[in-house]
């Protein structure tokens, strides 16, 4: 398997196969992340595609991190901009959490436990939702999250702790965590 940065370089040179490899390798993770941040699977898919378009035109010369964190930074910023645009910054209505019908985002998850976890994550504040998404859905390290969100690493760790604490309390109330 070719390194991601090499694949991007090949894609810049017009290599369609390298571009497709890169896309297939990272697209699902980007959709997961952007969908959980925006709360919409369709928006997440659009933003993942847009992230790859931006990647193609991005200046990568001064980036020190991993390819994954570079791509996630693009997607994360697009997701925040989109959220701002469609006015999803407010906390979701608690009545929506009580509603048992699964959202399109939940339907994209295979098991009931996963659906319940996503539902609870969606009920958290925007800050907690984003930090949990980057950590557990995106699978980023604390250092990567600090770079992506441009927040000090100590703050990132603190936010992750409080987000997990709130999340597990809600999941205990719903009987998912015993």
């Amino acid at each position, binding site marked *: 398997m070719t390194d991601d940065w090499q694949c991007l370089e090949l894609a810049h040179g017009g290599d369609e196969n390298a571009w497709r490899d890169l896309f297939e390798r990272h*697209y*699902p993770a980007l*959709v997961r992340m952007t969908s959980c941040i925006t709360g919409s699977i369709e928006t997440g898919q659009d933003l993942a595609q847009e992230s790859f378009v931006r990647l193609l035109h991005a200046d990568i010369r001064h980036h020190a991190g991993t390819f994954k964190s570079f791509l996630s930074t693009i997607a994360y910023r697009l997701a925040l901009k989109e959220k701002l645009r469609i006015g999803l910054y407010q906390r979701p209505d608690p009545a929506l959490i009580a509603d048992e019908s699964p959202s399109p985002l939940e339907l994209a*998850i295979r098991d009931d436990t*996963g659906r319940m*976890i996503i539902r609870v994550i969606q009920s958290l504040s925007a800050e907690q939702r984003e930090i949990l998404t980057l950590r*557990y859905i995106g699978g980023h390290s604390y250092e990567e999250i600090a770079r992506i969100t441009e927040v000090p690493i100590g703050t990132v760790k603190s936010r992750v*702790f409080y987000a997990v604490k709130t999340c597990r309390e809600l999941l205990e109330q719903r009987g998912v965590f015993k």
Partner: protein
Amino acid sequence: MTHPDHDTLLRFVLQTLDEPDNAIVSGHLPACEECRELEQKFLSEVEKLQGIKFHIAVPAPPRLTRRSRRLVVVSRWAAVLATGFLLGYMTAQLSDPVRPVVVQQRLIPTRAEVSSSAFVSCQAIDVTTSP
């Protein structure tokens, strides 16, 4: 034996606990079955958070069309120059002092003045400036 509280143990599991607390908890766990059980519980919960399985179909990638880097650079410089020119023009317009405008006013004689024998001419020109 002093057990770490739940929050401290959760921080330890999440690897967000600073030293020396991290070393204290790490040293405590091998000797305390109760805390190890709680640690395992937290670990399994974190695994559930990490292990959410999504079903996402991968579509075709976006078209591989790349703008020439030179074109991008030239476009950016053109945009910078245009913005600078616009700002300069607007600043010049705002800071330009008010120039006096000469307005010519011709005195039109009234009927009485025209009929008066003493009237010679009222072709005087009064030069004033606009405010």
